[in-house]
């Protein structure tokens, strides 16, 4: 187990390093530079030159890369050109925001998705299954931002049940009690989390239904029935437990997807998280922010598969990490 973990972590570091390098090169080689004059900003060419020198952008790319990596290894992700703040400081507020949104979405995705899949499988080919099957197919195939916009229009604009954007009430928040603050945050979280979660739940439910039906046809389920178990126990214990294995793989794959899905949703809902930060940074050629975002995303991917592997070995006795072989 330990040896396995060490090997996995080494591989993880290599992958993250490769992603950082590639992102660094791509964003620096992309046309356009930071510090360009725009309609709002009138910049003296001399000032631009000064800024470029200050941030080392006048040096050869190789030198910049080495400097960046060395700083990164010392725990310094650099300084944001556009926000004029250390990136560490920026991430300290945006990362928790994104984790909150993604976490809530992930919970909706898997709890709702698995529950729908289970309900459908237990009533396979009946009316409820067909209706839900169409609903999940719709959710699964709808673009996330489109669903986000519809929800904003219906529940934000038209019915005005939920706020249309932001992560808190900018005016009232400071004056609210602790409970009031929590309520305000949850209220703002509802629509974006629901958007991301529902789209995910559509796919998860379809996947879960198929996985459950596959297990339901196995010999050991017939054995469970022959034992005189209640149908509920057959589905919730014997079938679900086996169908959890493919679901765990899906979960590992979904972790990073939620981060990328968040890019669009955070923009739609003006949610001050990583996704919005990264999207803005790409347009302003805020190199260190883009690289930092890519770094975090790749960490999520690697972490996702690591978490999935560990969960998998917990759920499946046939896979015990680092140990092998049958006994008798």
């Amino acid at each position, binding site marked *: 187990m330990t040896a396995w973990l060490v090997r996995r972590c080494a591989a993880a570091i290599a992958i993250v390093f490769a992603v950082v390098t590639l992102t660094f090169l791509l964003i620096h080689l992309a046309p356009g530079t930071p510090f360009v004059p725009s309609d709002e900003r009138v910049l003296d060419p001399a000032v631009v030159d000064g800024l470029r020198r200050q941030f080392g952008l006048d040096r050869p790319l190789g030198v910049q890369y080495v400097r960046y990596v060395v700083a990164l290894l010392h725990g310094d992700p650099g300084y944001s050109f556009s926000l004029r703040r250390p990136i560490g400081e920026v991430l300290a507020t945006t990362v928790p925001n994104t984790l909150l949104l993604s976490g809530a979405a992930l919970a909706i995705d898997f709890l709702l998705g698995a529950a729908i899949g289970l309900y459908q499988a237990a009533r396979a*080919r009946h009316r409820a299954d067909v209706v839900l099957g169409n609903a999940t197919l719709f959710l699964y195939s709808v673009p996330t931002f489109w669903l986000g916009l519809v929800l904003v229009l219906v529940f934000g604009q038209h019915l005005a049940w939920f706020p249309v954007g932001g992560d808190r009430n900018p005016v009232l928040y400071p004056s609210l009690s602790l409970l009031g603050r929590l309520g305000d945050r949850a209220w703002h979280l509802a629509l974006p989390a629901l958007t991301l979660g529902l789209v995910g739940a559509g796919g998860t439910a379809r996947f879960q239904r198929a996985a459950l039906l596959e297990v339901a*046809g*196995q*010999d*050991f389920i*017939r*054995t*469970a*029935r*022959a*034992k*005189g*178990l*209640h*149908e509920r*126990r057959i589905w919730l214990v*014997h079938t679900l*437990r*086996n169908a959890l294995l493919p679901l765990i793989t899906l979960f590992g794959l979904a972790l990073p997807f939620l981060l990328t899905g968040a890019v669009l949703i955070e923009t739609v809902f003006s949610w001050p998280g990583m996704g919005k930060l990264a999207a803005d940074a790409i347009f302003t050629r805020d190199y260190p922010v883009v690289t930092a975002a890519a770094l975090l995303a790749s960490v999520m991917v690697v972490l996702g598969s690591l978490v999935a592997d560990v969960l998998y070995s917990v*759920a*499946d*006795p*046939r896979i015990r990490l680092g140990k092998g072989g*049958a*006994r*008798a």
Partner: protein
Amino acid sequence: MKEPLLRVRDLKTYFVTERGRGTARAVDGVSFDLYPGETLGIVGESGCGKTVTSLSILRLIPEPPGHIRPGSFIEFEGRNLLTLSPPELRAVRGNRIAMIFQEPMTSLNPVFTVGDQIAEAAIVHQRLSRRAARARALEMLRLVGIPDPEARLDDYPHQLSGGICQRVMIAMALVCHPQVLIADEPTTALDVTIQAQILELLERLQAELGMAIMLITHDLGIVAGSADRVVVMYAGQVVETAPTPELFTRAQHPYTEGLMASVPRLDRPPAARLHSIPGNVPAATDWPSGCRFHPRCPYAWDKCRAEEPPLLETGGAGHTARCWLVAEPQRRMRRS
């Protein structure tokens, strides 16, 4: 004779085949009795409906595509199993009638320990506490002769061999001391030496616990060694039934004769040892007219093609055969 424990009457289990290409009449009017404490062998070639018959008794037929036709009747302890409510049915399954299957490795749940799987039925049916059920499971593992039972209790099925898995299946089936054990080809997937051990085990457990066994097999050798009575099935029907010694000395149905001729025998020269029945088992979607065996039968005449024989009394005690030869034995002479 004693009252039968299980009475199967006119059991019909049909399957709707894919794209409506017809109905597979997998089991088509099967009747037989199972007496307390006996071993009843059910034999027949692959596809004759042995498994479907046994699954129908516990209503384990996947539905759809399968269904048991109205008019079928399976009496057990004074009730028709086919009309029981779900809770009543659950109280029979695994408790009064238990079942073991052909593939022990895939018939155990891979994600639960052997001990938990054995204990489960005792918890559900006898309301034992987890600890008492675990003790019960250990006792059962010992009973079925698994070496080092304490250690096996926490093993997962993939850690065990096929023979041990089948012993675990037997332990699981017998944990509630059922009246009937249905064993569907319990040794087909196992090595020959292990086969003999499992059959011996079943025999010993039957003597100790006194349950009746329905032993399904396509191997007449197993039937000869283990069964008290035999039901021979062909094309979804019972074609002959008799006490084992009677069947082996005075088989009446040409199909049974054919089955016996195809068993390897040491008292014949090697070239003559294996003799299989010509032709193939017809498809369950269209059984032949008249006697379903007539296309493969060496004695068949016009009547066999036109008219389906009923199960006829042969004269021997408890011996019936679905063959017109029983009524016209002289036809057998004429040919040979």
